[in-house]
């Protein structure tokens, strides 16, 4: 397998991360900045999940026949993909939703205070007051 074939997947995550970073820096609208940060986070989550992949391996759920638990073969490590990144990202996704909620609440508060979510207008209002 060529180097490109085995490593091109990381390029996708880097590209997604660059899009998110650009959005978080360049956009003036606070909601768009937040979307940029969420894309950045998604890139990292995808990267973590991709680490768990093993060639030719199955999802990390053992085949289980209800009521016939005695007939199960001992699982081999190379048969199942790595479950640890899945565990880490499972919690990170839900925590990500909650933190995006907090960010939106802060943006609503800023909107109530300044009447706008455009960063330059907010800075202008702070400078004038």
């Amino acid at each position, binding site marked *: *397998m060529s180097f490109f074939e*085995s*490593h091109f*997947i*990381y*390029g996708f995550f*880097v*590209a997604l*991360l*660059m*899009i998110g*970073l*650009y959005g978080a*820096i*360049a956009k003036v609208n606070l909601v768009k900045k937040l979307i940029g940060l969420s894309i950045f986070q998604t890139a990292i989550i995808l990267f973590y999940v*991709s*680490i*768990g*992949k*093993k*060639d030719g391996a199955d*999802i*990390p*759920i053992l*085949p*289980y026949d*209800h009521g016939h*638990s005695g007939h*199960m073969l*001992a*699982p*081999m*490590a*190379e*048969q*199942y*993909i*790595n*479950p*640890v*990144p*899945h*565990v880490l990202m*499972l*919690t990170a*996704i*839900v*925590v990500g*939703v*909650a*933190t995006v*909620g*907090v960010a*939106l*609440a*802060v943006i*609503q*508060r800023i909107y*109530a*205070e300044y009447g706008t979510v455009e960063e330059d207008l907010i800075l202008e209002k702070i400078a004038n007051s």
Partner: protein
Amino acid sequence: MRGLAILCAIVVGGILLWGSTDFPAWGRLDSPASVNLSDQYIEHAFEETHVPNLVSAILADYRNYDTMFETTVVFTACTAIFLILRLPLGPLARHRNTTHVQAARQRLPRDPILEMACRVLFPPTHLFGLYVLTHGHYSPGGGFQAGVILGASFILLAIGFDLRAILARFPEGLFVPMTALGVLLYIGTGVLCLVLGGNFLDYEALRVLAPGISKEMIRSHGILIVESGVTLTVGSVIFAIYANLVSRGNQMEGL
């Protein structure tokens, strides 16, 4: 600003791409993430916990400190939103009161098709959430996913009808204590293990309460108990976030 942002993104992306050339090939069996600990989990998790879904077993048994604090983070986020939006504070309270008087005048007429569709969809969604929780040991699922599905079922009702209609049946006095109750159930299980003579969150100590159960099965049941706590917290937090965000904290008028 735009040029600076593009430059930043390209520099960071370039460094990361350069760094990724040192990564192991994608999907290799001997990549550093997939040796040592992960092999131990895959080969021994079932015989130690009797949970075929290895993700559930690791989430709520081997790494249960991690999950406990993640649940606490979700609860803290809900508290933060409550403090930012719900508590009546000067400019925000004035703002939301004026805009909501305007919004109430422009309310859309009720749509019977939409309401009926949400009414029909709600019970299966709710039931599916409970299935994902209780069957999370044997199939993809678990506490976090079930919590999100349950929260989504309430949000569906709140969108289809309006926020006040759902808050009359599922009031704030119920879902805000539920966020804390889930965390309490999780940490309480840990403290109960401690009191019964084991380590914190070491479910084998619970065998004193249920003598007939093998020490593998008691770990399986312990996982179900803490996952229920996670479901309570996540489900009610998702709905609390929605209810406070769409109404700017006054919980009078939704989208």
